[in-house]
């Protein structure tokens, strides 16, 4: 696009990947993000100092911070993303829920206020339909969260939910929400320009999660049919319109086993998993974001888009599957990325990079495209096996486990998939290499460090030295 990128960096990121590969970079403070990447005024003055015209916030730190966006707007710079007003509207969960409800976007059914009596609870539960959840109004972290399967057990559970809420938060107010069983997390990419044009770029299936963190995403979803897709995407566009949204955003839905979907929240930014959408639509979302921010119209019309093939993304994290997924830090001493048609790596590291304790342990994102789902599963599995990151532990073995699992392959899984299945499994048995090979590798590894580079069995083989020229 002929744009010169300028990055900002902290002490820890002086020679980080993003710093190295941008044409200019401005130092903005200490390694802790509170001293650098979260300092709004520093970032804005860095942009001005470098003569930048616009700020792209990426997908962490301040990317969904309405105060920051407002500050950018007031500074005369352009924010590559939605307006602070839209972000504020969608930022409050309760306000967003109300706005969606008014705009005809389905939300998880529930009571708006606290439950006063057992009778009231029974009436509301009957309207909503069992199973239901009692949730503490002041709550969080699972406290005061109780499942009720039928009317007989309601009174006792209400009492205990109130008690738990009182003990945990000093407030015994609880409300009712429908329990979505075996839900899937399916989201829709939307995009809009400043001229009132809206479009969606289909769905992303993000039900493979570990501790509420997505790790494998795919598009299209195997779970939804044409009719559901039409309803889901049109609800997503309605949601974007309701908050006057401009630029790229994502509407997240919970989808139950009967394909009913409910608004969860809106991510008012570019998402980590945007490559799968780029693969199946051929649209460069970041390029589109920049064009929109510059006042241009969407470069395509809705009816020009169709789902082409199938794409999967795996998030590679520096964490140790054998040690309760503790983040792993250290220097990457070897980084070799897989390649081939339909393989993409969005990497944030290279050989020699230091993985520090300061930031998110995501190292890179591997995504693959193929003409169908079987093809992209096969491709990304091979790519993962050929992806070498040494120096820190990674979750690659967990990702291979997911791709080999029958539930994932059949497409019949929900957001509890990893929690339900992973415990049964021991990681170390899963390569195709027979056990004795491991013993041999281990034995030879002890001696292998002594080998010269490109040598065989300790003898340097430089055949140029042996060649005789006439």
């Amino acid at each position: 696009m002929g744009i010169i990128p300028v990055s900002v960096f902290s002490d820890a990121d002086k020679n980080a990947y993003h710093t190295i590969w941008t044409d200019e970079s401005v130092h903005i403070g200490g390694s802790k993000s509170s001293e650098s990447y979260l300092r709004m005024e520093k970032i804005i003055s860095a942009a001005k100092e470098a003569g930048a015209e616009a700020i792209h916030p990426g997908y962490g730190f301040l990317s969904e911070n309405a105060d920051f966006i407002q500050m950018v707007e007031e500074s005369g710079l352009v924010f590559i993303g939605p307006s602070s007003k839209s972000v504020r509207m969608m930022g409050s969960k309760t306000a967003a829920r109300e706005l969606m409800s008014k705009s005809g976007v389905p939300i998880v059914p529930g009571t708006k206020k606290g439950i006063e009596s057992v009778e009231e609870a029974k009436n509301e539960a009957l309207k909503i339909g069992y199973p239901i959840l009692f949730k503490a109004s002041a709550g969080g972290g699972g406290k005061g969260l109780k499942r009720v399967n039928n009317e007989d057990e309601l009174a006792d559970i209400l009492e205990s939910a109130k008690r738990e809420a009182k003990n945990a938060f000093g407030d015994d107010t609880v409300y009712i929400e429908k329990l979505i069983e075996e839900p899937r997390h399916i989201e829709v990419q939307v995009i809009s320009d400043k001229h009132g044009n809206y479009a969606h770029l289909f769905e992303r299936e993000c039900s493979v999660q570990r501790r509420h963190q997505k790790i494998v995403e795919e598009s299209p979803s195997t779970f939804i049919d044409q009719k559901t897709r039409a309803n889901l995407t049109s609800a997503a566009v309605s949601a974007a319109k309701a908050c006057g949204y401009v630029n790229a955003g994502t509407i997240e839905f919970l989808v139950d086993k009967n394909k009913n979907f409910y608004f969860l929240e809106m991510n008012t930014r570019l998402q980590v998993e945007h490559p799968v959408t780029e693969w199946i639509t051929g649209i460069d979302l970041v390029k589109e974001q920049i064009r929109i921010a510059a006042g241009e119209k969407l470069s395509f019309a809705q009816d020009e888009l169709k789902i082409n093939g199938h794409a999967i993304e795996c998030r590679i994290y520096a964490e140790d599957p054998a040690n309760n997924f503790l983040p792993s830090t250290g220097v990457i001493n070897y980084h070799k990325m897989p390649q081939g048609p339909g393989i993409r790596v969005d990497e944030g590291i290279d050989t020699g990079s230091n993985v520090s304790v300061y930031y998110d342990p995501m190292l890179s994102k591997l995504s693959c495209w193929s003409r169908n789902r079987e093809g992209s599963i096969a491709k990304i599995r091979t790519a993962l096996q050929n992806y070498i990151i040494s120096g820190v532990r990674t979750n690659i073995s967990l990702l291979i486990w997911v791709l080999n699992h029958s539930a994932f392959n059949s497409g019949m899984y929900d957001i509890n998939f990893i929690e339900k299945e992973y415990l049964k499994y021991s990681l170390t048995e899963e390569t195709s290499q027979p056990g004795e090979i491991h013993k041999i590798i281990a034995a030879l590894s002890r001696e292998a460090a002594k080998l010269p580079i490109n040598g065989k069995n300790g003898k340097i083989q430089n055949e140029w030295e042996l060649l005789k020229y006439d």
Partner: protein
Amino acid sequence: MTELIINDGKSEEIVLILSDDELLLGGQKLKYEIYQVNPYFKLLRIGSKNYRFALCDREEKSVGYLTEGHYFRYSVQTRLEKAIDEITSHQKESQKIFDVKSPMPGLVLKIKKRSGDIVQANESVLILEAMKMENDIKSPSSGIIKELLADEKQSVEKGTLLFRIEQLTN
């Protein structure tokens, strides 16, 4: 020839590296080739089969490596190292006086300390040659060498008392 005991935490297996290109595993003799692509990435070839692996950690008695996206870690010890480990770990529990015995038959090659010397934990006291390998026999604890019973060039049997360390109390 190097005899290595490979332990994955559950079971043990012995790999006998006979030479640069031959090893013995489970009574079976195998031809192998090993190439170093770069300091961290290696190729093992057995017959016509290629096995790629990246060395991640290499400590004195253990290795960790990555293959096909999976990480493995094994303890890799010579018989002597294993025996020393067992003796010293046993002795650590009974404290105060540590008797260091020869873990296997061998020849005392060199004695590095004298009786009365103060040594640190894991400091080498003497070198024992066994199975054509030189092995440091280290002090299991910091302390004073109370007695040094071995002589250079002395052949010792398994269980021969080599030296005795008295732990220093602070």
